Structure formats: structure tokens, C-alpha cells
């Protein structure tokens, strides 16, 4: 009974957030059309509703396929950034010397605007998947790194004291304890950086790749086709919403699981 109530609550939450997104998109489009009408702009500047709908029908499939490519890179890049941030944070935790060096490198890299460095990557590595993955992960890793360093340096006194007294304690236990005790914060940072990884993937495609939704936007921009850009934005929004939703569901599940295990323990 309680489980089905929870399920219907989750479904309602999903439905509500989808409606909010679509509603916001429609409001923005209406605002744009109103602006077009007030200023008497031709379709060349702001597309008419008819043009927008016909573009939606004719190019939705192309943009859906392009978005799949983009999000595949974004998700892969996001995973790399999580692993990378975790490795750096653990290194900082274990060895002060190595950790300081790694932390210095990680912070220094962040001082350079990655977007400005994108063309350099394309020149050095070429316009293939590797470059797009590097850009995506570099844009999204920093918030996760900061959170993980914070989480691992924050003692959980009560739990750590218990393990200390029963002498079942190693550095890995300590990492596990601190991570699980601050799981909500870590999950929030990972979800927050998901949008950044999507931005990274799109920027990389926009600059030099020959596939993906960023590339499609660049092509539409070349032809001054705002209607295509608006359709592409809708598709990006839907995919992004879906990605964040999946991460939230996974995060909540993981949190409940950890909570359940610690209750049992």
C-alpha cells in the first residue's frame, strides 16, 4: 500500500516536472511571437508559429538522433569527471604531498576558461570523440571535486568514534563512512554538474565536431534558421530533463539503500 503510494507520488512528480518544462517552453515561444507581432518582424528574424510547427514536424527526427549522440558523449564525459574527481579527492585524502600537487593542478586547470581552450584541444587532438569527452569532463568535474574534497575532509565524529573503539577501522572505511554519511551532498553535486557536462558536449560540437545537436545548431545558425534552433532547444531541454530525472531517481534509490543498510547495521 505504502509502496504504491510512493510510486504514484513519484509518477506525479515526474509528470509535474515535465508539464512545467513544456509549459515554460510554450510560454517562452508565446513571448517570442508576441515580440514578433509588436515589432512587426518578418519570419526571417523571428519565425511564425506555422513555420515553427512545420520545422518541428520535418526536423524533429534529425534533432532527436543528434541529441542521442550529444547525450551519449555528455553522459560518458560526466562519468569520467565523477571518477576523475573521486580519484583526485581520494589522493588528497591519502597523501598530503601528492594530494596538494593534484589539488594544485586541478585548481589551476580550472583557472583557464575551458570554453576558450576548446579550439586548442581540437588542434592538438583533432575533431574526434576524445576531444569531445575531454572538454565535457573538464567542464563538469570541478563542482564534484570541490564537494568530494569537502566531504572527505569532514569527520563524522559519532560513527568514526564507534569504529575507532571497535578497532574495525581502515582509511578505506573512513572514506566509505564519510561518503555515505554525506551522500545527499555528493548526489546533489553530481546532479548539478550533469547540466555542465551537457553544456560541455554541446560547446565541443558547436566549435568543431561534425555531429550532435551542437553541430546542428551551428548549421542552423549558418543559415539564420531560428525556427530550427528553437526546435533543437526543445529537444535538448527534454533530454536534459530526462537525464537529471534519471540521476535523481538513481540518487534517491542509492540514498535509501545506504540508509537501509546503515539502519540494519
Amino acid at each position, binding site marked *: 500500500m505504502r509502496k504504491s503510494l510512493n510510486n504514484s507520488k513519484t509518477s506525479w512528480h515526474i509528470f509535474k516536472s515535465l508539464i512545467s518544462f513544456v509549459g515554460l517552453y510554450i510560454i517562452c515561444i508565446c513571448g517570442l511571437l508576441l515580440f514578433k507581432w509588436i*515589432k512587426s*518582424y*518578418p*519570419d*526571417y*528574424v523571428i*519565425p511564425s508559429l506555422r*513555420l515553427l510547427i512545420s520545422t518541428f514536424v520535418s526536423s524533429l527526427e534529425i534533432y532527436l538522433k543528434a541529441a542521442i549522440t550529444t547525450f551519449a558523449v555528455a553522459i560518458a564525459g560526466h562519468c569520467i569527471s565523477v571518477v576523475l574527481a573521486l580519484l583526485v579527492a581520494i589522493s588528497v585524502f591519502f597523501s598530503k604531498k601528492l594530494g596538494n600537487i593534484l589539488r594544485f593542478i586541478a585548481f589551476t586547470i580550472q583557472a583557464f576558461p575551458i570554453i576558450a581552450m576548446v*579550439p586548442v584541444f*581540437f*588542434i592538438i587532438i*583533432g*575533431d574526434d570523440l576524445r576531444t569531445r569527452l575531454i572538454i565535457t569532463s573538464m567542464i563538469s568535474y570541478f563542482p564534484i571535486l570541490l564537494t568530494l574534497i569537502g566531504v572527505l575532509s569532514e569527520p563524522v565524529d559519532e560513527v568514526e568514534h564507534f569504529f575507532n573503539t571497535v578497532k574495525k577501522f581502515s582509511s578505506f572505511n573512513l572514506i566509505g563512512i564519510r561518503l555515505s554519511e554525506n551522500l545527499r551532498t555528493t548526489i546533489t553535486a553530481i546532479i548539478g554538474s550533469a547540466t555542465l557536462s551537457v553544456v560541455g558536449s554541446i560547446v565541443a560540437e558547436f*566549435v*568543431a565536431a*561534425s555531429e550532435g545537436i551542437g*553541430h546542428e545548431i*551551428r*548549421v*542552423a*545558425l*549558418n*543559415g*539564420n534558421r531560428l525556427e530550427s534552433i528553437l526546435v533543437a532547444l526543445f529537444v535538448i531541454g527534454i533530454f536534459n530533463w530526462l537525464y537529471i530525472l534519471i540521476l535523481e531517481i538513481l540518487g534517491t534509490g542509492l540514498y535509501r539503500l545506504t540508509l537501509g543498510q546503515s539502519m540494519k547495521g
Partner: protein
Amino acid sequence: MKPGAKQSLLVALVVILAMVLVGTFFVFSKKKPQQERTLRLKWLANVGFVGDLYADTYGFFTEEGLNVKVIPGGPEHDAIRDLQTGEAHFGIASSDQVVKALAKGADVVVIAQIYQKNPVQWIYRRGQFEVNAPEDLKGKIVGITIGDNDENIMRALLKRSQLTEADLKLQPVQYSYVPFTTGEVQLFPVYRNTQGVELMKQLQSQNEQVGFFDPDRNGVRFVANSVVTTSKLLKDDREGVKRFLKALLRGWRESLNPTNQELATNAMLRYTQSTGNAGADTSLIREQIAVSRDLVIPSEGEKAIGKIDVNGWLMTEDIMVDQKLVERKVGIQNALDTKLIEEVITNK
């Protein structure tokens, strides 16, 4: 105060007032009221716009009583869009932009055609192969910028030569030369008078010889940069538009005249350095200007710079309809103001 002194003071006041009035009259009558106008270039300031920048640098617009602000374009700017929103009064736009804009109901009129030959060509390394005719493209990897006019030109050329995409490989590229320098593509689209010269010089410094494949020579007439404005401005201030055009075309004539090479180079340096390209090379600019002459000056001579090639426009429109870039013909001939340019050329 004595009555005589009062009278003298009054006379002095009248004289001063008269002097002020006369002075004001002279000051304002000497200075023509200047019209504020904005010209949006199609791309960043480079030799492709040497005439526009020359006219601005040496005050040709001011001489015509216009205060013209020349602003560079870029990937996110569109001169025709600026005309519609009132951000600009004049613009430099390519023919495909004009046709697409007309198809979407924009108010745009072509008042001069700067390039008589399209500068879009394909650069390739000589030695391994030569490309003189479309058939020579068979089996090659050819770069195209998807959505840009080089794509339209290449597709039109293939169709005209009865070649299909299966005969060669069309590889999407963007503005970076890397795919060409690394050999990923064998033929790379360039603007012959700007990127073409730059790349050629780079490769020549490494003892590599290059060639250019020119679709224009192979029958594809796809009009390039032209000067555009709105029919509203033409209707409201035809004389002002004419004065603008007069100054602009004078800029092109003088900048391409070999005797003004130094002046034209200096005008370009002023712009390129102001956009952060401090290392702009004078010899490169000179060479770019020299190549531009062949693309801009019509067969009738430099006096006819700016003439509108109506047949070229009709062919451009046909290509765009054929490639489904626009649904139907837009009646391009109605958007070409050939009379105004004739008046300017013949100085009527």
C-alpha cells in the same frame, strides 16, 4: 548713467547680438548636417571588405555628408537581420542570405554587387594530383561547411557535372584549417582572397605548392557579397542611399588601385590591429588585395565596380530552389535595384 553712454551700450549690445547671429549662421551653414548610418559587414574585418574599410578610414562617407559606423559581422551576426530590426541601415550579405531572407518575407534590396566572381574556391596540395575540372574531384576527400554557401556551390557543381556524392567524399569542416593541414581532407573550402592567400603562404613556407579549384570557372555562378538595404530606406531617402553607395564604391575603386596599395594596407592594418590581430602581416595583406582585384573588378573596368549581374542572381536562385534551400522562387529580380547602381556608376 549719462544718456549718451546708455545709447552706446545699447548699440554695443545690438552689434554683439548681430555678430553672434551671423557667426552662428556661418558655422551651421558651412557644416552639412550629417546623417547617422550603420553598415554591418558580413564577417570580421578582413581584406574581403577592404573597400568598405578604406571608405571609412579616409572619410569618403563624411565627404558625402554621412556619419557611417562600420561594424564587423561574425558567425552570430547577420546583416539582413540587423536591417529588419533597425540595428543597421546597410549591410554586406551573400546571395544565399538574400534569397533565404526574401523567402521569409524580409524587406531587403540589393543595391550593389561587390564581387563579380565568387571568392569561394577549394585549396589543395599540388604534386599528388591536379584539379582542373569537376571530374578530377572523383575519389577525393572534399571539405564542405554544412549550411554555408560553399556547400551550395559544391552541390551545384556536382549536379552540373553529373557527379554524385558516391564519386567523392564530402567531409564536413568548420573554420579551422586543421583538417586540411593534417591531410584529413584533400580539398578545403576557402575564400580565395583571404584564407586562400593565408594558407597558401603558410604551405609555401614549408615548400609545399598549392592549387585552387574554382567552381566559377566551371560554370557555377553563385553570387557572393553584395550591398543590401531596405526598400523603406530607399523610398524615404534614395538620395542618401545614393551618396552612401557613391562613397562606398569610391572606397573599393581606390583601395584596389595599385597606386594606393600603401594606403589600402594601412587601412587594413588599422582594423586588423584593432581587432587584436597585432601580428598582421603587410605582405600578406598586399597579396590578398592583389587577388581581390580579379574578383571584384568587372570586365568593363574599375568604373563599373558594383554592377549587378542579374543572370548570376537568377542562377543563384535556381540553385537554391533546386537544393530545396527555399521552397519556391522568390522573384529575385524584383529585389535588385539595378537603376541606382547605374546612376552611381554613370555619375548621373
